[in-house]
């Protein structure tokens, strides 16, 4: 397929602090440039890290007329000299070069504050990426995401998704994409719930895996995420118990061929193999302690504990404490 005869906008201003949107705008500019010239190269720097000479070099057309996309990050920190150079260049952009200026909209110096205005006057294509703070903006974002992925979502579905996933745009975007891929075009509350139940099991499993490998930050984060998603406490407790008991069983029989052990232990070989790797972080005292923790936890999530979420967190911390190299 031959490239369509389009000339990409030579000048872009990406304005705002919403990281996901900023990244998308930059990627869109790059893709547009590559539509015209698939070989176009990308150069990306922070404005504070280049000299005017380097900038001039970057923005001058190459001898062989190859396309180039120059991204200047953190333009709100720009110095006077570079700001002047950019403004001057903007009035007469070079052929085959696309300049993308990424600016939060703020800035301390006058030069930095004036830069967006100057670029707009010079005809830069503006992409607004203001931080999304209001619920209505977040809902609009979700609707757009689903539409981008080729689907439609009703208001109840939007509410359910925001409730289940939380406020992080990246998570929302990936959930929206996944939902359209899994559930097809039309998405309502039921599809969202089904999707998250599927994820729930995986989530308990992730908590367990991080806990038994001693990843303190990761385990606690995964646990909070799981609790936030509303994963049943019992499911997380079961996943923890299964992970600890599997390691204990595998390490009790000593090192041996996973395929031979698989039959003996009644587990698939990959599970044995993984547990053998995880077992390196455990000694017998630690395993004994962890087994007691998961047994206690099983009772706690079945109604003994007043706050099962807290019981889970304490259990994860205890497992992490019991984890130590042998």
């Amino acid at each position, binding site marked *: 397929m031959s490239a369509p005869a389009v000339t990409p906008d030579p000048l872009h201003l990406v304005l705002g602090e919403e990281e996901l949107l900023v990244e998308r705008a930059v990627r869109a500019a790059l893709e547009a440039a590559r539509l015209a010239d698939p070989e176009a190269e990308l150069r990306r720097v922070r404005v504070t890290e280049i000299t005017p000479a380097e900038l001039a070099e970057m923005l001058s057309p190459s001898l062989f007329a190859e396309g180039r996309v120059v991204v200047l990050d953190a333009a709100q920190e720009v110095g006077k000299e570079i700001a002047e150079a950019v403004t001057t260049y903007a009035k007469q952009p070079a052929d085959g070069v696309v300049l993308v200026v990424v600016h939060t909209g703020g800035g301390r110096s006058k030069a930095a504050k004036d830069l967006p205005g100057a670029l707009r006057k010079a005809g830069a294509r503006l992409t607004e990426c203001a931080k999304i703070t209001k619920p209505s903006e977040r809902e609009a974002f979700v609707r757009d995401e689903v539409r981008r992925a080729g689907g439609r979502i009703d208001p109840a579905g939007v509410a359910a998704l925001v409730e289940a996933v939380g406020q992080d745009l990246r998570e929302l975007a990936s959930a929206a994409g996944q939902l359209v891929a899994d559930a097809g075009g039309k998405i309502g509350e039921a599809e969202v719930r089904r999707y998250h139940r599927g994820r729930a099991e995986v989530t308990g499993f992730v908590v367990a895996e991080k806990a038994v490998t001693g990843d303190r930050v990761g385990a606690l984060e995964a646990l909070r995420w799981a609790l936030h998603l509303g994963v049943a406490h019992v499911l997380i407790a*079961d996943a923890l*118990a299964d992970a600890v*008991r599997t390691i*204990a*069983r595998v*390490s*009790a*029989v*000593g090192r041996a061929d996973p395929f031979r052990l698989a039959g003996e232990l009644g587990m698939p070989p990959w599970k044995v193999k993984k547990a053998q790797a995880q077992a390196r972080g455990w000694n*017998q*005292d630690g*395993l*004994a302690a962890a*087994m*007691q923790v*998961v*047994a*206690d936890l*099983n*009772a706690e999530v*079945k*109604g*003994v504990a007043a706050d099962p979420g807290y019981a889970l967190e304490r259990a994860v911390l205890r497992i992490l404490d019991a984890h130590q190299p042998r």
Partner: protein
Amino acid sequence: MTPAVTTGVWADVVGQPEAVRVLLEAARAALHFTSGRSAAPGAMTHAWLFTGPPGSGRSVAARSFAAALQCTGDAEEPGCGECSACRTAVAGTHADVRVVVPEGLSISVSEMRSLVQVAARRPTTGRWQVVLIEDADRLTEGAANALLKAVEEPPARTVFLLCAPSDHPDDVSVTIRSRCRVLSLGTPSPAAIADVLHRRDGLDPQTAEWAASVCGGHVGRARRLATDDEARRRRESVLRIPLGLRRFADVFPASDDLVRSAESEAKTVSGTLDEAEREALQTAMGAGGTGKGTASATRGAKGALKDLERRQKSRATRTQRDALDRALVDLAGFYRDVLLAAFGADAPLAHPDKAEDVRAAAGQWTPESALRRLEAVLACREALDMNVKPRIAVEALVTALHTGR
């Protein structure tokens, strides 16, 4: 002390002379009442609560009392054991004795309501309408409320006999308790148990004595151990665990063994029962019939079958848990024996036939670690009581038994 009554239906009430005296007196008073003669005021009560430790024979005592209430034999010694009323009452087939044995985990409200209705009828053949509830501690709250109404205002000729283990006193509602006359049974002595195994069940004195000495005061358990090879084999394998945990690797085979043997015991118990019940139900519903109304009858039968299967499943869970608990009681006894040996205490052992193992263990472990092991067993029993998955609870227990920490 009154000499023990060991004739008629009372012979089954093992090692409870005081309870038998009270019940016999009440049965006599009841007889006077039904025959129109005056009775000592307060001697007869319409609601009884039989409590006692597991195995003390609560339901046996209640059945014997029910028989005595219906007995048509000697009026001064009710409960002759020979008249048809006594025999059918003990067997649970007497028309005026309803025996409720909760097969699931609890007795439902609807079951209790229909029971209360039956209880209000006049006795058909006997003197009293007797309702015997074997595990009153497993009543749901709704069922307990339905029962309470009947117990508070009992029909003139109705007697409620409730049974509940004394180690779960809180499980029977305070209000129901307060409306009942409480009959507390104690743990029968080994001598009394050996005596009944020998004289009633015809076991040789040696076997009877051994079984009585290792059953923890549980008459049914003693009978089982004396007559069932499989039960003896299971006890042996459980009591091999404490000294068998030499390496960490020994933990999992031992745990598997405990859990699997409880499972298989439950399967043996329920397997035969399940099939018989299913057949009985199918016969009753006229399975395989043709003609008018068959389709709707089949739908009804399917519902009933589903209901039966649900009950059977919950009974299997219960049986399995009970079997596991029995193994844990045996284990606890072993560690208790080790503690006694460590302190040189002169108390009867739970497992006198394992005295040698007990001494060996007492030589290996500090008293503190033996105590921790005992506590771990008790904690595991509690965990199972709270529905912790058996495998998780047992593996954690056996690990603790291995480390002693």
